[in-house]
């Protein structure tokens, strides 16, 4: 399943990772069956699946925010124990500290590491400029729009220069136009300095446009990875234009074919519509 030719030491390797929850009143809820996920250094991998399939859970395991029920995560070959200190995590929800200005929110990630305040602020201003918020540093999160908050969060993660980026539907709550702009920004920043990216999303277009490889997860419970599609679109990509390429449509059709039944399962729909059409 894994494409060969990447470095022998993947940035993230989940081996036989499964997730089960104890239910109140006894019993086990098997959320994710043992799966293998591998993200090579410098590779952009999208994890695509219907709502509730456990894709965010896999991300949390890679981040070390939660332990797997079985299996292990290897980060650059090292068994992960506790938090993944090599990774930056971009959350779906608002994760900025509301009592700190945009600048302080970004700088704090460096300061806690012992960087002097002056150096931290210097780096912060660079990154705020990169995400287009150079003049918004003194604003508090509540004074920023949803898209601007996401940019601050992106700067907050990137300023620490993590080797791995973990993203949990980061642009999910944004409107369609802002999403497009944010995707473009993300690709530009990533292109300049390729990190390993694990990008969780339920948006097929977004997954294809951004990534090198798309993993498709089946609907939960007992979800697993049911598809691994390399995306051979040329880089650097123009998010808006790439969507009109014939190759994009071919990939879209192929992945949607795999994904469709899983999405239907999530909503408890049968496959009759498809069968009738067939």
């Amino acid at each position, binding site marked *: 399943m894994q494409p060969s030719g990447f470095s022998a030491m993947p940035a993230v390797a989940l081996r036989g990772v499964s997730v089960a929850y104890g239910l109140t009143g006894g019993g086990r809820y098997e959320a994710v069956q043992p799966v293998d996920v591998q993200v090579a250094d410098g590779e952009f991998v999208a994890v695509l699946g219907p709502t509730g399939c456990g894709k965010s859970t896999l991300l949390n395991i890679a981040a070390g925010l939660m332990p797997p029920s079985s299996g292990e995560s290897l980060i650059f070959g090292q068994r992960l124990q506790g938090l993944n200190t090599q990774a930056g995590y971009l959350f779906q929800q608002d994760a900025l500290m509301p009592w700190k200005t945009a600048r302080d929110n970004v700088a704090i990630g460096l300061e806690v590491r012992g960087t002097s305040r002056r150096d931290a602020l210097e780096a912060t201003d660079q990154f705020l400029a990169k995400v287009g918020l150079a003049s918004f540093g003194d604003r508090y*999160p509540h004074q920023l729009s949803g898209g601007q908050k996401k940019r601050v969060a992106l700067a907050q993660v990137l300023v620490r220069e993590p080797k791995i980026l973990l993203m949990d539907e980061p642009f999910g709550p944004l409107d369609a136009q802002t999403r497009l702009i944010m995707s473009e920004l993300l690709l530009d920043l990533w292109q300049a300095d390729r990190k390993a990216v694990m990008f969780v999303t339920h948006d097929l277009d977004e997954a294809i446009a951004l990534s090198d490889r798309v993993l498709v997860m089946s609907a939960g419970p007992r979800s697993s990875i049911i598809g691994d599609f390399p995306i051979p679109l040329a880089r650097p990509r123009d998010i808006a234009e790439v969507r009109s390429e014939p190759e994009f449509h071919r990939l879209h059709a192929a992945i949607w074919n795999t994904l469709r039944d899983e999405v239907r399962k999530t909503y408890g729909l049968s496959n009759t519509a498809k069968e009738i059409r067939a």
Partner: protein
Amino acid sequence: MSRTKLLFLQVMVAVVVLVFWHVFSTVPLGTGSDGKPYYLLPQFFFSTPLKVIERVFLMFWEGTVYKHLMITLTEAVLAFVIGATAGVLIGFWFARKPLVAAVFDPYVKMMNALPRVVLAPIFALWFGLGIWSKVWLGVTLVFFIVFFNVYQGVREVSPVVLSNARMLGMNERQLLRHVYWPAALSWVFSSLHTSVGFAVVGAVVGEYLGSSAGLGYLIHQAEGVFDVTGVFAGMVILMIFVMVIDFFVTLIEKPLLVWRPSETRTVQ
């Protein structure tokens, strides 16, 4: 609504009440069966607004009230500082140690359910008739407000913000300083008006029940000799006192809560 119009209406409310009070306490409605004039608000029970204003003015003019104001202010400030400090520390401790919180939970609830007024006599016994019995009464009031707010504030820190802070590399000490502490403080500040108000309540109630100085003492003395004008004058001074304190609290909290969304955000 414009500011001036609002201010006008607010002043009108006071004017209407005062005029009503004045008219019905000075103009007889008729003559009673015993031949005496009959008032809706007899002066013996209600005084008149002019007499009350005159008394308030005299108390300030002659300077008799300042000593009492200072005493009450000292008590309230001490009650607030001690109560808030204890509330923050213990609130923090309980929120971070669920076992401690679980063990003490019924006792905290019991203590909080107790009407604090019943403690005043026993505090007078323990701490004497000086300021400390009043301070501790105020502390029992302020403590619980601040304690519950901090406890809630620390426990309800958004889990996402917390996870994010962890992923940004914060250790426990840094989480405390950059996440838990500001979250808890914001709750303390949002309850500042209430807790400062209760510090004053503790001081005045304590004075009322047994003391030799303070605003509560003034009111109690006046009541003892059926000096209704003195009672009303004491209440008016107390109201002015609380409003002045409230004004300063607002002044302090504004820069501290600048990060909070306010209702009006439009700027020209």
